[in-house]
């Protein structure tokens, strides 16, 4: 397998994990245990090996273990064809999250270049029925996995957007100031739009080529106002032209921050939001698997975090999922309340049982089911 493989994961004072250390092989990792045992917490720790706030959108202070020192730390080793890479992330009490790569201070966006991390968590069950923000974030995470620079463009756009919105709310009139921010937004925004379009193309291609038990989705990026300017010049012109209306609204009304991701169950022609709960979940999983295939084909297989996914699939789809994970040869982390859910994952699966006592999780490696 090319790309980076997570070989060691060590946690201290992360959520319910006071201290944990996992030595990982090539295959799938299954974590089972009772409700509240600390399974999702472990997946969340893995999600912190990518830029951002992880799979729960948590702050540095929130993930520090209650009753701990107030700080926390995650250390990971990755085996790449060239070298062993060392990632360390954590926070001192009351301080923001910091990152070290191979012992040197780094920034979060550097993590995007090392290994992509994708996840499906129960909170995403409502992805297709709730507001556009969640779908936009999902799309941007896919884009970031395929185009690591996407994180920088997204951060730059977001920062300039927040600056401009503040000017609008304060009723500032200095046209030079608006022009300067709009120039930043236009250049970062055009990159955002282009990356997102590239991502949709890659996902579509990965769905077309796949032999899979999962449904294919037709994807489109849509805007509440219909179309949106997506070249640098068009975006700059739209922002300048929109200043008066934006000031009345107190926020920026056009631009890539308004994008929404639309999905249609291709075989039935039914929009995702009108599908059944199980179908919506299958679509979501299908897209994440397509994303993983696209990455694997580019020599960058992702870490795939599937929280409580197995329990919600019927036996047929579960078998299809396990077959696909096996074929892709990537590292997936699965959780469930019963070890029996993971029968069928093959002999290379590594199993841990999570148990909780006094608010602290213990992980014990167990035999494959």
């Amino acid at each position, binding site marked *: 397998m090319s790309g980076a493989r997570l070989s060691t994961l060590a946690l201290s004072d992360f959520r319910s994990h006071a201290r944990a250390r996992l030595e990982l092989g090539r295959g799938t990792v299954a974590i089972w245990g009772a409700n509240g045992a600390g399974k999702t917490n472990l997946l969340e720790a893995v999600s912190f090996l990518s830029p951002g706030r992880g799979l729960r959108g948590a702050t540095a202070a929130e993930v520090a273990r209650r009753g701990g020192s107030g700080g926390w730390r995650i250390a990971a080793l990755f085996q790449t064809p060239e070298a062993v890479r060392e990632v360390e992330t954590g926070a*001192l009490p009351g301080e923001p999250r910091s990152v070290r790569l191979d012992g040197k201070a780094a920034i979060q966006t550097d993590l995007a270049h090392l290994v992509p991390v994708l996840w499906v968590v129960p909170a995403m069950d409502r992805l297709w029925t709730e507001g556009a923000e969640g779908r936009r974030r999902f799309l941007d995470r896919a884009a970031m996995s395929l185009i690591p620079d996407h994180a920088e463009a997204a951060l*730059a756009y977001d*920062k*300039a957007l*927040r*600056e*401009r919105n*503040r*000017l609008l709310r*304060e009723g*500032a009139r*200095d046209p*030079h*100031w608006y*022009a*300067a*921010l709009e*120039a*930043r937004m236009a250049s970062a925004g055009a990159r955002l739009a282009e990356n997102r379009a590239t991502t949709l193309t890659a996902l579509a291609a990965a769905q077309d080529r796949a032999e899979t038990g999962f449904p294919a989705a037709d994807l489109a990026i849509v805007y509440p106002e219909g179309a949106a300017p997506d070249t640098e010049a068009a975006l700059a012109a739209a922002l300048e032209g929109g200043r008066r209306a934006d000031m009345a609204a107190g926020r920026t009304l056009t631009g890539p921050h308004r994008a929404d991701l639309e999905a249609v169950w291709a075989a039935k022609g039914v929009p995702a939001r009108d599908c059944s709960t199980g179908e919506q979940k299958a679509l979501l999983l299908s897209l994440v698997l397509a994303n993983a295939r696209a990455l694997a084909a580019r020599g960058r297989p992702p870490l795939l975090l599937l929280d409580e996914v197995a329990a919600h699939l019927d036996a047929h789809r579960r078998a299809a999922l396990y077959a696909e994970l096996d074929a892709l040869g990537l590292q997936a982390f699965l959780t469930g309340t019963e070890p029996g859910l993971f029968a069928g994952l093959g002999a290379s699966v590594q199993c841990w049982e999570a148990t909780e006592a006094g608010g602290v999780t213990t992980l014990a490696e167990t035999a494959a089911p």
Partner: protein
Amino acid sequence: MAAAPADIDALIALMARLPGLGPRSARRAVLHLVKRRSTLLLPLAEAMQDVARTARDCVLCGNLGTEDLCAICTDDRRRTGQICVVEDVEDLWAMERSGAFRGRYHVLGGTLSALRQIGPDELRLPLLESRLGPEGVTEVILALGATVDGQTTAHYIADRLSGRGVSVTTLAQGVPVGGELDYLDEGTIGAALRARRAV
């Protein structure tokens, strides 16, 4: 319960406010000083008092000096028609160490940000405009950071100075500047300056 006497604790608390120092390193530094009272602590205290008494911001460019006008602003040989705009005094010092720039400076004291409530007036920009004529300025060189705020500020200044009869340039792209100038060696700064381009 505090381990150290109250006045030492107060000193530690002050030190911990310095950039790069946290509570732990501040404790270490203070302990180091207190153990060397005559050889280090007293000379340091005297030097700090001297600087506190004599240090002044140059009323024109914002550089640090001991008079109303800094040594660069009073030196006629540095009236070359070029002004280099930097975020902070540390950037000015880095440029000076490189020896690559012979003109004058304008220290903004930060970057434009509505979120941090720093507007053009907080950045001494009106002062920059008022210097153009009297100092015979023909070129304003922007040496600002690659961050969103740095680039916004550069764009803003270029926009505001357009039509004022000066050319506005920026250091070669790809060279990290603004707070980061300090990390560049002299040769790199010189090369970035020679490869500057119009905004």
